[in-house]
């Protein structure tokens, strides 16, 4: 038998024929087709029942009610809580994208201590026991040297149980230096105290107002509670009830029925000019002004000295003069004043931008005077003082603590110079940098906010921080300030923790919201309240006794026993008894009336003009010759301007003429651009007395000539690769301009030059 290659061929042919008679080719073709459509490395999210959980967003002080869709214990989507009394189902883009922060790479995953230089980013993981003993040893040491008052604590809010625990801790420990981060509400709350004698948040009933005159408030870009304002916007639009005073055609100005482009920084003059017309034409609410107000007419004190009243002060602000100051023509001022005074339930609001941009006291007082003239205090559609939470338990403290509490505050707040100002974080860098010898702050607890990003002139602030020997941060994220700390004691993410959220600034009802865990804590983090209880425990003595609770949750439930049922069931509690008091009972000022002449304000100088609201031109830093332009930050709902940075989803929404390829665009009027030889898209260097930044040019007709507008919230240097290094931080280009009467930062802008790069 011969076997040759034909046999072999035959075998192959037999095999081939056979194979076609098997499923192999057909099945394999199909399977390979499927195989090419499989991407096993792309995630396929786990299915399961959807469970919705109610909570409150605390990414900013707005405090919107949220409803979180979870599947198998993981947060999937954040939506507004429809019945929440503050935001009524609406939510800003930041709130919606909070899941990106929860699961993102910016989280601090465990307590850590610094191993390299400050800000170098070298950390070593430590245990909670070590972290707490490190902090308490440092604090114990300062206390034993009788220097408890050299400890300071920065927080973003001074209301609610967590800020309260921080204040209680400092009080028991012996430091007066609890400092809230600055916002435009500093000036408004002080004005509220001076005119009404009440400490509290300010509530504007915009929903029921018939006419809203906004002095530069970015209602559509995160002023007050973003969700609340956005949901009210349709109503503003439909009823043509919003007038916006602002030098830039912002989203709010675009929505307004009238855009009044006053020169920046002249808002107080405009408000007084309007008041002038209202008083001159007898359009004010006589019932209120005659019976419930003090200091409208000239008045005589017990020594027989005659003081100037508001009415005669206003004589200094005739429309013609105001037109010269503000750049608004006389006719517009006259008609605006009449429209305001004759409208049903008019209200004037202030607080520039998203409220992050501070402001002087005069502006707030001038705007408040407008409201008082139309008698909208505690009326539907008007202005109301919402009382501060007052449900705190008693405590005792030792002598060291009492002595420490007697010491002056490091920021100069509540001093003889600034008696009515409660917090002045803007003055802390100078206090440290100008101190002879060791820093007046020996230990800093950063329990909220992100001062090394949000403070004006961040370089100077950083220099001051350099002199503080010990900085502890409780931040959830590796933000700019945490990056500059010595030890990190990370708080849970807000979707992982309990916390109460009292009435947000701007909201006209008394409400408490409940933030509660939506997901299990993902990392080795600890609730800041528990961390404080732990630190107090290891300090011992009176401090330990001031924190008798097993944990924060126990304290929270005990404090809010009355409200707990409602908080647990609905996610919020609305004070059923809260009614804005009638005019007879509303004012707790020395005169018992609404004070057009804030008698408490004049203590320092004694001059009437210093007490009454007035227009005092803020001298912006910088040489007008070398820096012919004026830089102003602007707020955008698509860019988070506060402590917590934009997650990637938010940055995705930002337009190409705001940021592109890592470069921020500043807006200038085409006319100004021409004068400076700049055109659309040009790269340029923006220089101010505080620093400089590389920017690109966007021409925008909607901006007043001579101004440079830069978005706030970009240029982060920390968090993660997904957030850092995009654009420039406008805060680093601004400086503090101290308001002489209040110490608040009145610097709404800064001189700048813009040169083509």
């Amino acid at each position: 038998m011969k076997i040759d290659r034909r046999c072999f061929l035959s075998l192959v042919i037999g095999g081939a024929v056979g194979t076609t008679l098997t499923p192999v080719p057909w099945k394999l073709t199909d399977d390979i087709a499927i195989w090419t459509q499989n991407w096993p490395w792309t995630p396929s999210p786990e299915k399961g029942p959807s469970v919705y959980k109610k909570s409150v967003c605390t990414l900013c002080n707005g405090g919107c009610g949220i409803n979180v869709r979870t599947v198998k214990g993981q947060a999937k989507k954040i939506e507004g809580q429809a019945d929440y009394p503050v935001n009524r189902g609406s939510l800003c883009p930041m709130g919606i994208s909070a899941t990106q922060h929860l699961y993102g790479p910016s989280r601090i995953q465990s307590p850590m201590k610094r191993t390299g230089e400050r800000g170098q980013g070298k950390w070593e993981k430590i245990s909670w026991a070590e972290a707490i003993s490190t902090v308490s040893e440092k604090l114990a040491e300062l206390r034993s040297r009788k220097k408890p008052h050299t400890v300071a604590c920065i927080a973003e809010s001074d209301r609610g149980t967590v800020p309260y625990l921080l204040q209680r801790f400092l009080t028991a420990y012996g430091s007066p230096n609890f400092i809230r981060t600055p916002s435009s509400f500093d000036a408004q709350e002080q004005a509220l105290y001076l005119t009404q004698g009440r400490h509290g948040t300010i509530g504007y009933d915009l929903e029921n107002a018939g006419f809203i005159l906004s002095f530069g408030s970015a209602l559509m870009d995160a002023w007050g509670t973003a969700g609340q304002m956005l949901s009210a916007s349709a109503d503003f639009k439909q009823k043509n009830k919003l007038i916006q005073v602002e030098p830039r055609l912002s989203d709010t100005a675009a929505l307004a029925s009238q855009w009044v482009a006053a020169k920046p920084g002249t808002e107080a003059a405009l408000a007084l000019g309007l008041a002038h017309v209202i008083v001159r034409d007898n359009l004010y609410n006589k019932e209120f002004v005659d019976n419930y107000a003090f200091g409208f007419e000239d008045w005589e004190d017990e020594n027989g000295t005659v003081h100037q009243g508001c009415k005669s002060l206003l004589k200094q602000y005739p429309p013609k003069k105001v037109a010269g100051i503000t750049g608004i023509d006389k006719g517009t001022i006259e008609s605006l004043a009449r429209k305001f005074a004759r409208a049903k339930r008019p209200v004037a609001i202030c607080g520039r931008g998203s409220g992050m941009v501070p402001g002087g006291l005069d502006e707030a007082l001038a705007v408040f005077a407008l409201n008082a003239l139309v008698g909208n205090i505690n009326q539907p559609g008007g202005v109301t003082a919402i009382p501060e939470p007052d449900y705190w338990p008693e405590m005792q403290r030792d002598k060291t603590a009492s002595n420490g509490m007697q010491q002056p505050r490091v920021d100069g707040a509540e001093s003889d110079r600034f008696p009515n100002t409660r917090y002045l974080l803007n003055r802390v860098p100078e206090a440290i940098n100008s101190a002879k010898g060791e820093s007046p702050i020996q230990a800093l607890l950063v329990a909220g906010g992100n001062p090394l990003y949000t403070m004006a002139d961040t370089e100077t602030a950083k220099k001051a921080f350099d002199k503080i020997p010990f900085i502890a941060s409780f931040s959830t994220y590796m933000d700019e300030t945490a990056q500059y700390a010595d030890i990190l004691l990370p708080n849970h993410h807000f979707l992982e923790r309990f916390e109460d959220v009292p009435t947000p600034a701007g909201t006209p009802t008394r409400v408490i919201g409940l933030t509660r865990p939506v997901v299990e804590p993902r990392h080795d983090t600890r609730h800041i309240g528990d961390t404080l209880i732990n630190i107090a425990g290891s300090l011992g003595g009176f401090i330990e006794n001031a924190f008798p609770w097993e944990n924060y949750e126990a304290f929270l439930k005990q404090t809010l026993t009355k409200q707990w049922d409602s908080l647990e069931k609905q996610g919020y509690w609305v004070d059923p008894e809260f009614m804005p008091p009638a005019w007879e009972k509303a004012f707790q000022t020395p005169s018992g009336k609404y004070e057009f002449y804030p008698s408490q304000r004049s203590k320092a100088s004694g001059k009437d003009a210093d007490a009454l609201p007035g227009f005092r031109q803020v001298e912006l830093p910088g040489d007008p010759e070398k820096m012919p332009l004026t830089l102003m930050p602007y707020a955008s709902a698509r860019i988070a301007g506060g402590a917590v940075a934009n997650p990637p989803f938010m940055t995705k929404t930002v337009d190409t003429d705001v940021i592109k390829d890592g470069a921020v665009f500043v807006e200038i009027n085409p006319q100004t651009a021409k004068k400076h030889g700049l055109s659309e898209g040009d790269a340029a260097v923006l220089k101010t007395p505080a620093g400089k930044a590389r920017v690109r040019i966007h021409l925008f007709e909607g901006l007043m000539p001579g101004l440079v507008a830069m978005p706030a919230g970009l240029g982060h240097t920390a968090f993660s690769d997904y957030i850092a290094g995009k654009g420039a931080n406008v805060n680093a280009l601004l400086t503090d301009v101290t308001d002489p009467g209040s110490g608040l930062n009145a610097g709404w802008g800064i001189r700048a030059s813009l040169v083509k790069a």
Partner: protein
Amino acid sequence: MTKQAQHTKTKRYGMVIDLDRCTGCGACMVGCYAENNVPFRKDETDKMLSLNWLRVFKVDNGKPFPDTEVCYIPKPCMQCDGRHMEGHSPCVSVCPAVATDYDEPTGVVSQIYTRCFGCRYCMAACPYHARKFNWWDPVWPADMEKYLNPDVSVRMRGVVEKCSFCYHRYQKARDKAYVEGRDEIAENEYQPACAEACPTRAITFGDLHNPEHEVYELSRSKKAFRLLEKLNTNPKVYYLTSKSWVRRKADNYLEGESPADRKPAHKAETASH
């Protein structure tokens, strides 16, 4: 018989966006990205490579200060019906893989990622730039995979993606109706994430064929228009504006030609029936 029954049930889901109400806050965009597992990159300021299903554009009237006006235009996929209302939309007609198709019962233009092989012909055909291509495999750093929505497929590199009017929400609403023994779903049961997220209630969504739905009247209002109507793509996304300059921006008008000269959007539709 079944065919007949189906035809009478045919819906044409559409959207009416009131530009007078939109404040450009961006909640719709973020709501969409979070709902639809839209991937992101390390540098989202690199707008050439940034991927999205919905963008809000800012336009202005070009007048000098202080007579300037601005307007925001949110732009999802237009879900074109095509010239003769038979689903011959620009992208569907060119897809060589039937990866994108016209969903007869709802009028939504579907995109099936596993079917797409990434030729990007549809992107070239789409006059609205509604389609985006995945040049890279998406990456979710840290634990970010955990927030992905199981109702929406995660895409992979090499495929085109676009707005689906949150079709998965329609599927879910239908499921609920089946379980409750209903044939029809209510207007509020199927709302895309953007419409739901819009805090100013500028986005209205519903069946353009159903007189009981809000969009029916709105899309027929005098203020209604669509983008690039001259192309006869028959989009199902309508816009409302009271400003004539906005209207002018929405299409290429000849000198002297006014948007008011054109017949209202719905007339064009009924005429072609």
